[in-house]
C-alpha cells in the first residue's frame, strides 16, 4: 500500500482550483497509476476523499466528484468488484441532482455505464435508476454545451447498453428525451440527439406503444432541422461535416414507419423549395425512407410523389451553356445532382410498387402529350431550348423506368414504342424480316429527331436490362417478353432508320445530334446478346457494312467517322467477350477483311494515318482480329519495303516509315498486354531477314536514313520481345545473311594484317560502304542490341571484328552493338560449355588488343590496351603524329564511349581505363602546347585539329551517363547495376575537378567543363546534394564559362536545372547560403542569356528561391538583384516577364517598410 501522505497531496493539487491544468492532469495520472497497480484501493481513496465529496463548498465538491469520476474513466479496463460499482453508481446517481457539481456526476455515470461485463458493469436496475434520476433532475437545455453533450452521451449509452431497463420506463423515457432534445442547436450534440431518436425508435417499434403517441411531437422537434444547412462556407463545424450530420438526421427520419405521416409531406414540401441543396437532400431522404417505410405506407403518397418527382426531373436538367463541353454532340444537357437523385428515387419507387407507379407514368398527361406531339420535334435545330429540356426529361424517365425491371420494360414498350415507331414512319414488318414495307425509306423527309432520341433511350435501357452494366449476365430472358417481340418486329426497319442518319449530305454541324444517336442506335442493335434477342444475320451484317462504308468513304466528316469507328470497336469487343461464332464470322468477314484490304499499297482512298488508326483500334478488340490485322500490316510493310529495295521508290519509303512506326510503337507493345502472341514478332524479324536475303539486287542509291531508323527500331522491339530460343535462331539467320552477302565481313574475315597494311586506307573505304551493306549491318546491330543476356552469340570473334571495322567508319549502331555485347557477355564461361562462346574477358582482349586500334600507332586509344597503364610512355603516346588519323580517332572515341557505357552499367572496373583515355584526349591540347612536337611548325594547325577530338571526348561523357532510347536500357535487356551513376559520379568528378584546377589552357578548361556538365546533369540529385558544398563553385564557373557559346545552350540549361535542384532542396540550402553571393551574381548574368528563353526563366525562378534564404545572407545583395530583375521586366517573352514580376516582389518585400502580407 502506498503511503497516504504521498497521494493525498495529489488529491489536494487536483481539487485546488488555483493549480494549473497541467498540474491537475499530472496528479490525476499519478493517482490513476497507483490505482491501476493496486497500490491503492478505491475504497481507501473514497474514504480519504470523503471530505471533498461531501463538503458544502460547491466548488471543492465539484472538483472532488470530478476527480473520482475521471479516475473511473482511467480505470475503464480494470476489474472492479460489484459492491464497489454498486455503491459508486448509487453515489453518482444521487449526485445528478446536485446541479452545482453536475459535471463530475455525469462523467462518473458515463464512465461506469461504459464498462464491459468482464470488468464488472452496472446492473439493469441501477441503470434504470440512473435514467430515472436523469429524467427527474436534468434540465438539459439549460446546461452548457459540454454538459449537454455529456447528457446526450449518457442517454445514448443507456439506450445502447441497457435498452431493456429503459423500455420498462415506457412513456416517461420518451417524453423525457423529447424534452431534453427540444431546441438543441450545437452540431455535435445534434448528431447525438439524432442517434438517440434512432435508437429510441428501434426499441419502441410497436405502433400502439409509447412512441406512437409521441411520434408527432418527436418529429416536430426533428423536422425543423431539415434540411441541414451550414452557414459556414467550408461546410464543416468542429470537424463535423454537413454530410455526416445530414446522414444522421436521415437515419433518424427513417428509423420508424411511425414518422411516415409527418416526414413524407415535409419532404415533398421541401422538394419544391428553391434551394438546390434542400432538393437534393429531400430526394435522398425520400429514397431512403421509401424503402424503410414500406410499400403500404408509401402507396397513399404515390401521386404526390410522382408529381413532385416529375417536376424535379423536368426542371433540373439545365441546358449546357456552351457546346464545347463534353460530350459535344449529346442532347446538350448535363445531369446535375438533383436530376441524378431524382432518377434514383424514381427507380426506388418503381422497384417497390411497380404497378402503381407505372400506371401513374403511363397515364401521365404531360408525358403523353410530349409523346403524342413527338412529330412536332422534327428538326433538332428548330426545337426550342424549353422543348429540348422537356424531351430530355421524358427520355430520362422512360430510360429509368425501362431499366428497372422486365415488367416495367414491357409496360414502357407497350405504351410508348408504337407511337414512336409511327412517328419515325416505321411499321411492323413480317416475321421473316426480309421484305420491308419501308424498303425505300429515305431521308427525303428527315427523321423526327424527338422520336429518334426517345427510341434510342428505350433501346439503350432494354439492352442495359439484359446485359447489365458492362458484363454479360446470365439472366434468362424469355424471348416472348412483350418488348422483345415488339423490338424484333421492328428490328430491320429500325436499323434502316438509324443507318439513314449516316448518309447525311448536309453540313455536319447541324447533323451532330442525328449522327450521334444514329450511330449509337446501330451499335446497340448490333450488340444485343444473341442468346435472347437474335438480331437477324442480314441486319447485323447490314449494320457492319454501313459503318465500315462510313469508315472507308466519309473520313472527311470527322465526327461521323470517329463515332462510327468507336461503334465498330465497341461491337468488336462485345463479340470478342461473348462467344458468338456467327457474329464473329460476319465481323471478321466484313470489317477486318475490309480494313486489311485497305492496307494494300495500291489503295489510295484514305490517308495512311487514318488507316493505321482504324487498323489499330479494331485490332485491340480481340486477339484473333489482332492476329489477322498484324498479318495484313506485315504484308503491307513488306510490300512497301520491296518497292523501296527494288524500285527505289521514295514515296513508298515515307509510308513504310509510318507503317513501321505504327508496328513498333502501337502493335508490338499491345501484344505484351494481350499475351500469347510471342510468335508474331519472331516471324516479323525472320521475314525481314529473308526479304533482304532474297532481294540481292538493290537499286536504291541513297540510304533513307529515316526508313533505316524506323526499320531498326521495329527490329529491336521485335527481337527484344522474343524468347531466348527464338533469339538464338534469329541471330543465326541474321549472321548467315551477313556472312553471305556483305563485303565488309569478307574484308574483316581476311587477314587482319591486311587491314593493318592498308592502314589509313580504311577511311577511304567509307565511300565504298555500299548502301546494302550499311543496311544489313545496321539491322544486324539492332538484333545484337536487343538480345537477352542469356542468348549466346555465335562467331563472336568475327562479329566483333565486323563491328569494329564498321565502327571506325563512323557507324554509330555498330558502336552501340559493341556496347551491348560487352554489357551482356557472361563474366566467366563454364568449361563444360561449347568452346565457341566467349567470356567478357576474352571479348575485351579481342577488342582492345585488336590491331585496328593500334594500327594508327600512337593514338590515344592505345592506353586502353592495357599496355599504356598510365606511365609516361602512355602519355607520350598521346601525341597526334598524323593528322589523317584524326578522322579515325573520333569514331573510335564514339565507339569507346558506347563500350564504356556497357561496362559502366554492369559495374565493370575497366571503365576507369576508358575514362582515363577520354581525359587524356581532353588534355591533349595542353600536351600539344607543353610537349615539343616533332613537327614544331605545325603547332597551330595541330591545335585546330585537336579541337574536334576534344569535343568528342567531352561528349563521350554524355553517352556514358545519359539514358539511351536506342540501346542499353531495360527494354533491350541490359544488365544495369543499381546506383551505377552515383558510383561513377563520385569517382570521376574529383578527377575532372582536379584537372580543371591544374589546366592552364582555356580551351582545355572549356572542354573539361563540358565533360563535367554532362556528368552532373545526368547524375541523380541526391548524389549531388551530398557534395553540394564543393560542387557549387565549380558549377558556377562552368555556367559562366559555357554561357559564351550558343552551341552549349542545352548544356547550360541542364546544369542550371541541377543548380535549381540544389537550391530547392532542404539539404542543399546550407551550401547555397554559404555561396549566396557568387550564386546570385552568376544567376544575374544568366537573366540576360540571349539564346534560350527557358534559361532566363529558370534563372529568375532560382533567384526567387534564393529570396527564402536567411535574411542576413541575402540582404546585401538585394539592390543588385532588384536592378537586374527589373531589366527582365522588359524581356521579349511573356513567361520571363511574369517570373520577373514575382521575383521582384519577393526581393522587394524582404526589406520594405510596409507590412508583408
Amino acid at each position, binding site marked *: 500500500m502506498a503511503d497516504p501522505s504521498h497521494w493525498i497531496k495529489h488529491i489536494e493539487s487536483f481539487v485546488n482550483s488555483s493549480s494549473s491544468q497541467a498540474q491537475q492532469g499530472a496528479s490525476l495520472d499519478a493517482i490513476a497509476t497507483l490505482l491501476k497497480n493496486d497500490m491503492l484501493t478505491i475504497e481507501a481513496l473514497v474514504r480519504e476523499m470523503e471530505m471533498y465529496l461531501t463538503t458544502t463548498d460547491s466548488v471543492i465538491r465539484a472538483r472532488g466528484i470530478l476527480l473520482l469520476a475521471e479516475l473511473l474513466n482511467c480505470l475503464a479496463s480494470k476489474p472492479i468488484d460489484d459492491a464497489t460499482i454498486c455503491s459508486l453508481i448509487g453515489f453518482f446517481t444521487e449526485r445528478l441532482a446536485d446541479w452545482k457539481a453536475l459535471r463530475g456526476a455525469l462523467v462518473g455515470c458515463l464512465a461506469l455505464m461504459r464498462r464491459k461485463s468482464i470488468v464488472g458493469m452496472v446492473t439493469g436496475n441501477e441503470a434504470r435508476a440512473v435514467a430515472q434520476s436523469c429524467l427527474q433532475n436534468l434540465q438539459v437545455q439549460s446546461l452548457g454545451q459540454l454538459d449537454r453533450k455529456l447528457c446526450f452521451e449518457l442517454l445514448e449509452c443507456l439506450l445502447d447498453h441497457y435498452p431493456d431497463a429503459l423500455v420498462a420506463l415506457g412513456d416517461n423515457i420518451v417524453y423525457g428525451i423529447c424534452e431534453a432534445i427540444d431546441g438543441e442547436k450545437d452540431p455535435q450534440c445534434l448528431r447525438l440527439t439524432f442517434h438517440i431518436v434512432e435508437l429510441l425508435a428501434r426499441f419502441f417499434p410497436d405502433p400502439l406503444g409509447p412512441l406512437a403517441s409521441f411520434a408527432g411531437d418527436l418529429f416536430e422537434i426533428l423536422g425543423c432541422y431539415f434540411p441541414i444547412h451550414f452557414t459556414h462556407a467550408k461546410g464543416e463545424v468542429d470537424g463535423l461535416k454537413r454530410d455526416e450530420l445530414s446522414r444522421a438526421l436521415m437515419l433518424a427520419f427513417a428509423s420508424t414507419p411511425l414518422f411516415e405521416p409527418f416526414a413524407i409531406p415535409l419532404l415533398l414540401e421541401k422538394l419544391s423549395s428553391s434551394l438546390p441543396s434542400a432538393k437534393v437532400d429531400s430526394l435522398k431522404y425520400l429514397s431512403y425512407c421509401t424503402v424503410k417505410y414500406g410499400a403500404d405506407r408509401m402507396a397513399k403518397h404515390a401521386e404526390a410523389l410522382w408529381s413532385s418527382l416529375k417536376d424535379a426531373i423536368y426542371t433540373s436538367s439545365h441546358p449546357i451553356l456552351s457546346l464545347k463541353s463534353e460530350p459535344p454532340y449529346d442532347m446538350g444537357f448535363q445531369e446535375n445532382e438533383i436530376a441524378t437523385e431524382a432518377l434514383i428515387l424514381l427507380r426506388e419507387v418503381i422497384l417497390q410498387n411497380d404497378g402503381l407507379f407505372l400506371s401513374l407514368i403511363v397515364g401521365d398527361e404531360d408525358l403523353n402529350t410530349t409523346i403524342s406531339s413527338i412529330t412536332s420535334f422534327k428538326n433538332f435545330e428548330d426545337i426550342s431550348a424549353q422543348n429540348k429540356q422537356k424531351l430530355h426529361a421524358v427520355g430520362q424517365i422512360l430510360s429509368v423506368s425501362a431499366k428497372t425491371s422486365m415488367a416495367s420494360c414491357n409496360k414502357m414498350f407497350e405504351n410508348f414504342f408504337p407511337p414512336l415507331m409511327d412517328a419515325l414512319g416505321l411499321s411492323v414488318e413480317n416475321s421473316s424480316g426480309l421484305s420491308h414495307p419501308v424498303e425505300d425509306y429515305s431521308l427525303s423527309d428527315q427523321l423526327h429527331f424527338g422520336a429518334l432520341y426517345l427510341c434510342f433511350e428505350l433501346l439503350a435501357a432494354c439492352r442495359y436490362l439484359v446485359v447489365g452494366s458492362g458484363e454479360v449476365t446470365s439472366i434468362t430472358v424469355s424471348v416472348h417478353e412483350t418488348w422483345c417481340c415488339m423490338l424484333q418486329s421492328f428490328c430491320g426497319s429500325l436499323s434502316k432508320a438509324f443507318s439513314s442518319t449516316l448518309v447525311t449530305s448536309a453540313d455536319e454541324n447541324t447533323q451532330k445530334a442525328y449522327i450521334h444517336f444514329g450511330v449509337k442506335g446501330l451499335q446497340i442493335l448490333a450488340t444485343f446478346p444473341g442468346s435472347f434477342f437474335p438480331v437477324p444475320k442480314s441486319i447485323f451484317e447490314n449494320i457492319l457494312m454501313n459503318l465500315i462504308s462510313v469508315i472507308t468513304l466519309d473520313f472527311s466528316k470527322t465526327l461521323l467517322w470517329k463515332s462510327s469507328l468507336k461503334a465498330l470497336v465497341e461491337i468488336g469487343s462485345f463479340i470478342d467477350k461473348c462467344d458468338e461464332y456467327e457474329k464473329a464470322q460476319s465481323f471478321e468477314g466484313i470489317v477486318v477483311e475490309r480494313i486489311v484490304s485497305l492496307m494494300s499499297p495500291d489503295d489510295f482512298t484514305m490517308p495512311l494515318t487514318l488507316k493505321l488508326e482504324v487498323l489499330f483500334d479494331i485490332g485491340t478488340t480481340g486477339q484473333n482480329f489482332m492476329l489477322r490485322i498484324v498479318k495484313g500490316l506485315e504484308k503491307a510493310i513488306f510490300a512497301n519495303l520491296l518497292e523501296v529495295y527494288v524500285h527505289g521508290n521514295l514515296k513508298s519509303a515515307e509510308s513504310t516509315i509510318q507503317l513501321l512506326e505504327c508496328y513498333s510503337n502501337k502493335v508490338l507493345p499491345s501484344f505484351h498486354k494481350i499475351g500469347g502472341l510471342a510468335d508474331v514478332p519472331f516471324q516479323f524479324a525472320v521475314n525481314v531477314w529473308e526479304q533482304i536475303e532474297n532481294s540481292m539486287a538493290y537499286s536504291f542509291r541513297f540510304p533513307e536514313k529515316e526508313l533505316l531508323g524506323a526499320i531498326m527500331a521495329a527490329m529491336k522491339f521485335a527481337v527484344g520481345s522474343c524468347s531466348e530460343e527464338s533469339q538464338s535462331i534469329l541471330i543465326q539467320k541474321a549472321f548467315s545473311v551477313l556472312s553471305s552477302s556483305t563485303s565488309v565481313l569478307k574484308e574483316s574475315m581476311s587477314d587482319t594484317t591486311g587491314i593493318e597494311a592498308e592502314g589509313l586506307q580504311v577511311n577511304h573505304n567509307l565511300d565504298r560502304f555500299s548502301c546494302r551493306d550499311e543496311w544489313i549491318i545496321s539491322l544486324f546491330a539492332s538484333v545484337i542490341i536487343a538480345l537477352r543476356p542469356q542468348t549466346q552469340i555465335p562467331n563472336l570473334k568475327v562479329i566483333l571484328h565486323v563491328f569494329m571495322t564498321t565502327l571506325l567508319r563512323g557507324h554509330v549502331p555498330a558502336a552501340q552493338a559493341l556496347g551491348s555485347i560487352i554489357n551482356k557477355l557472361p563474366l566467366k564461361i563454364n568449361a563444360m560449355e561449347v568452346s565457341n562462346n566467349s567470356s567478357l574477358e576474352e571479348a575485351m582482349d579481342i577488342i582492345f588488343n585488336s590491331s585496328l586500334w593500334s594500327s594508327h600507332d600512337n593514338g590515344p586509344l592505345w592506353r586502353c590496351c592495357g599496355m599504356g597503364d598510365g606511365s609516361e610512355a602512355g602519355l607520350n603516346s598521346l601525341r597526334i603524329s598524323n593528322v589523317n588519323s584524326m578522322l579515325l580517332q573520333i569514331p573510335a572515341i564514339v565507339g569507346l564511349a558506347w563500350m564504356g557505357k556497357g561496362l559502366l552499367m554492369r559495374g565493370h572496373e575497366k571503365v576507369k581505363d576508358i575514362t582515363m583515355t577520354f581525359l587524356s584526349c581532353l588534355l591533349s591540347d595542353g600536351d600539344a602546347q607543353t610537349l615539343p612536337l616533332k613537327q614544331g611548325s605545325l603547332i597551330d594547325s595541330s591545335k585546330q585539329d585537336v579541337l574536334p577530338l576534344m569535343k568528342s571526348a567531352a561528349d563521350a561523357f554524355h553517352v556514358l551517363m545519359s539514358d539511351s532510347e536506342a540501346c542499353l536500357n531495360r527494354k533491350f535487356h541490359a544488365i544495369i547495376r543499381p546506383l551505377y551513376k552515383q558510383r561513377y559520379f563520385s569517382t570521376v568528378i574529383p578527377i575532372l575537378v582536379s584537372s580543371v584546377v591544374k589546366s592552364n589552357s582555356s580551351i582545355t578548361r572549356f572542354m573539361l567543363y563540358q565533360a563535367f556538365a554532362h556528368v552532373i546533369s545526368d547524375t541523380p540529385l541526391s548524389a549531388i546534394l551530398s557534395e553540394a558544398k564543393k560542387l557549387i563553385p565549380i558549377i558556377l564557373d562552368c555556367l559562366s564559362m559555357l554561357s559564351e557559346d550558343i552551341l552549349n545552350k542545352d548544356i547550360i540549361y541542364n546544369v542550371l536545372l541541377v543548380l535549381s535542384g540544389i537550391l530547392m532542396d532542404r539539404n542543399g540550402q546550407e551550401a547555397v547560403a554559404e555561396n549566396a553571393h557568387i550564386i546570385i551574381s552568376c544567376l544575374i548574368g544568366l537573366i540576360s542569356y540571349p539564346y534560350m528563353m527557358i534559361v532566363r526563366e529558370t534563372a529568375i525562378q532560382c533567384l526567387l528561391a534564393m529570396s527564402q534564404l536567411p535574411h542576413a545572407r541575402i540582404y546585401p545583395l538585394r539592390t543588385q538583384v532588384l536592378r537586374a530583375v*527589373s531589366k527582365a*521586366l*522588359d524581356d521579349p517573352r*511573356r513567361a520571363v*516577364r511574369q517570373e520577373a*514580376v514575382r521575383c521582384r516582389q519577393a526581393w522587394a518585400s524582404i526589406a520594405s*517598410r*510596409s*507590412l508583408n*502580407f
Partner: protein
Amino acid sequence: MTLGLINANPVVHAKKERIARTEDPHCDDAVDPLDIYDFVRDIRDPEHPYSLEQLSVLSEESITVDEKLGRILITFTPTIQHCSMATVIGLCLRVKLKECFPPYFKVDIKVAPGSHANEESVNKQLNDKERVAAALENPNLRQLVDECLYSSEL
C-alpha cells in the same frame, strides 16, 4: 473620418475564367491588355474583401496599350459616384504597374467619363507625379495600398 462604409452594399460580379495562354513558342509575346489585366484584376478593393474584377471596377476592355510608344491607359469605373476611394484605387493601380513594368512605360490612369462626381480632380490627382509621390510617403496611405495589393483575403 467617414463613419461606416461609403458603398455599403456593392454589386459583386462573378470572376471571369482565367484562360491559360497557349504555349506557342513562336507567338508574339508583346505586352497586351490581358497581360496588364492579369496583374491588376486581383487587387483588393479598399473597402470590401472583393477584387476589383469582382466589383467590375476594371475590365480587360478598359485597358489599352501601345508598346511602341510605351504607353498604358487604364480607365476604371468607381462603384459609386461619390466614391472617395477612387483615388486609393488609382494609387494601387499605379503602384502595381510600377512594379510590373519597366520604368519607360508611361502609365495614364483615369476614371471612366461620367462615373465620378469629381472626375477632373481625381484624374488630375492620379496623374500628377508629385502628388502620387507625396501620397506614397504617407505611411497610412502606403499601408492601405499595400494591404490592397498583397492581401490574400479574397
